[in-house]
């Protein structure tokens, strides 16, 4: 498995607000046997996660998702913290849990899994070759050999601070059967989001504004001009004599947009090959997180997490677009690791000199790795 398989999700006409374009993704039939709920955390979103022994992940974590594959949540999507309530008993006053999370994905009683959306993917990116040099070559500093890349930090912007995103999501008209959305800033894919069931989507639609977005998205939204609507055009032809012909021409417009979206807009995301990393297996569904190949061809590179069914079709998807600097860092780390952390080999693989490679390491923010001479 190295590609995202978005079968079952069809793109419908986009809705534009200033520089933000939202493309609804619609499922004919909801995915059977999987529902997503949201649980909200207190403490203004300040969250710390225990990822491993003496390893912590800290970020803005306003909510988590709960995947439920028991098949019981089919009739209604519950507001996260209600699941303790008995049948028929009045719902308790909701008290927001404010605890340190243990692991990014954690099994809950019953067939449920709590995971922290987007943070799962981001942690995967941050943990890339987190251990540092595997062999103690003399170029690497003692700190690098002892602690690896720790502490490793990346920047992201909250959805509220992405210009126009809040208004775009508010004024967006959700389609019947909509299970996902693709967010574009200045017509660059900023995020993709898909869930198994339309009811889940209606509840989770506003959470997009509390998600994290890369620096590039923030800049594009801030500086980008309003993007045009792709208005329908019906060509005057000799065949256009009846209402049926007119209806067919109108249908053709919708189909043309759906095709154009897949090949033109979302190509970066759908055509890329990814390294998938299995996080959890639940019944016939599997939770993965994925990293892009970190090739520097100018296209967008997305990290993300997904839940797929046994045929590899996407039931849940959430992506984050890396900024150029983040792609560069990923690329550099992969090449260094690929050369077994030997500077001369890595320089040769990158087609550059050792001195230049040192400069690149320093400018990528990994100066502490190198031993001062």
């Amino acid at each position, binding site marked *: 498995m190295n590609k995202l398989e978005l079968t079952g999700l069809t793109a*419908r006409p986009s809705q534009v607000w200033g520089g933000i374009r939202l493309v609804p993704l619609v499922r004919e039939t909801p995915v059977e046997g999987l529902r997503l709920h949201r649980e909200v955390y207190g403490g203004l979103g300040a969250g710390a996660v225990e990822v491993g022994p003496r390893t912590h992940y800290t970020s803005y974590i306003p909510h988590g998702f709960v995947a439920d594959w028991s098949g019981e949540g089919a009739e209604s999507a519950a507001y996260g913290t209600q699941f303790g309530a008995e049948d028929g008993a009045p719902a308790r006053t909701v008290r927001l849990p404010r605890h340190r999370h243990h692991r990014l994905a954690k099994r809950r009683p019953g067939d449920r899994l709590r995971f922290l959306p987007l943070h799962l993917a981001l942690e995967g990116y941050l943990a890339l070759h987190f251990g540092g040099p595997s062999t103690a070559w003399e170029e690497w500093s003692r700190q690098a050999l002892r602690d690896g890349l720790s502490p490793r930090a990346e920047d992201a912007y909250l959805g509220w601070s992405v210009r126009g995103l809040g208004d775009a999501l508010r004024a967006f008209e959700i389609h019947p059967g909509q299970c996902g959305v693709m967010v574009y800033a200045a017509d660059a894919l900023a995020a993709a989001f898909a869930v198994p069931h339309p009811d889940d989507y209606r509840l989770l639609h506003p959470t997009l504004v509390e998600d994290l977005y890369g620096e590039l998205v923030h800049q594009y939204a801030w500086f980008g001009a309003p993007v045009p609507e792709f208005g*329908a055009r019906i060509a005057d032809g000799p065949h256009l*004599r009846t209402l049926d012909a007119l209806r067919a021409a*109108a249908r053709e417009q919708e189909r043309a947009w759906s095709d154009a979206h897949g090949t033109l807009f979302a190509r970066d995301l759908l055509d890329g090959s990814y390294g998938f990393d299995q996080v959890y297996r639940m019944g016939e569904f599997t939770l993965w997180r994925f990293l892009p190949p970190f090739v520097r061809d100018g296209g967008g590179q997305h990290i993300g997490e997904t839940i797929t069914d046994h045929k590899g079709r996407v039931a849940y998807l959430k992506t984050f677009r890396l900024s150029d600097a983040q792609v560069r860092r990923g690329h550099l780390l992969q090449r260094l690791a690929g050369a077994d952390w030997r500077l001369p080999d890595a320089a040769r693989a990158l087609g550059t000199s050792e001195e230049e490679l040192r400069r690149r390491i320093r400018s990528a923010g990994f100066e502490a790795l190198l031993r001062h001479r």
Partner: protein
Amino acid sequence: MTTAATETFADLVAAEDVLLFVNAAITATGQREFRSEAYRQRLSLGFLHEYVRVNYRRVYAASLALDINDHNAVRVVRGLLEHAGEASPVQKRTEGQLIAARLAKLPPQRVYRLFRELRAAKVNNRRTRAITRDWLAARPDAAHDAVKYRAGLKTAVRHAHLPLDGELGTFLFRPGTLPRYEHRLLDAWRRAHYEQGAVGELPFTVAEGFAARHGMGREAFVERMAPRMTRLERLRTQGQRAAGADGLPAGVDLTVMPLTRLALYVLSLDREARVRHRAELTGALRAAARRAAGPHAGSWGRVAAVLDDSYSSSGSGEKRRRPLAVALACHFLLEALAAPGAYTPLWTTGTRDPLLVRPWGPTPLGTRIIDALEHGPERLVIVSDGWDNAPPGLAGEVLRVWRTRLDRDRRTAVVHVNPVYDADGFDVRRLSAGVPTAGIRDAEDLPALVEIARFSEGRTGPAELYAYLDRQVARFTTDDEAGGVR
């Protein structure tokens, strides 16, 4: 166009500006809309008022005779009075008649607010004083106004230097000096300060303040005040009354309510209540629609309507569900206007039950218009905010192709009415250049609006538009004189 030889380009532009302003003055209220903030609406509307007042003063005044909304009527009156120097004596006379006729139709609280604004803007010319004097003289009960609009009346009287005879002057300007008042209401107000029993004799809004001061229980108070409330107050406090909390308002005859107001009320009920009272609500809506249709009932032939109940018809926190209410009211009105059994409604969500309609989903106007045209109607009415988004622009294309290729001899009259003012475009949003668009605030005005809308199609010239305006002005001012002082 027959008179094309005598019409210059400037005339056409002028006619376009006039229609633009009329559309804006009918729909815009300076409140938040689904897609724009209140301050943008006010900014845009403010510019439009100034532009039309400076360039087309005659039309600006004449707009008072059309069905523009109260907010804009007050603004127009204020603009005319503030800039009186720009008008000629003849113009001033017509303006005076129009202003007097319009003020008589406005709710009193709006007029008192206008007087307050005039005072704040230091507008105190002779004409303003005369208008204030005449309007106050025509009020049925000065004492009632003195109690209910105490501050407003005080400001107006002080600003226009009006002498107040008898105890009214004492009541307003030297309260507490008389041991008792002759007038029943004035005395009730005096006693209400210390006697709970007197609170019940006052108008509801005034009594509310006293009730809070005396610490009276809200529920019992509202129950007791019910007979003294206005119709809208009774509807508004419906949820606070114990007796009719889950039913329909007890003391209100729904069938006499104006159509759009009734539609707004129906939409404010939840689904269960609407299902439970389906018969009463539908009956009331039908009755209101028949009354609004009046002599036109059944005269429109085969009618199809495309009605927008997409998510954006939920309006905003300030104009809750207004676009949807207009669509719902139009549905019943068109049902009354069409020949019996020859009416086809098409909602954008595809619902077949108009009473349970709710704002939801995208706006596939294009496909719905094709569906409507398949019924071969004589008239097609589209009620929508003009944001066609599934896919965008399809409605305009469908209408263009229909006009230019499929229906060249215009057997179908298409009209688009739009309840939402687009602040960025200084007009209501259009679907297509070939289809007339008119702003709409109350569905009851639909027949009149369809008449205005045909001017925007470009097939009738500016001369006819001005003739139409003059006719409206003449009707408006003479109606009022014939009707006498209210």
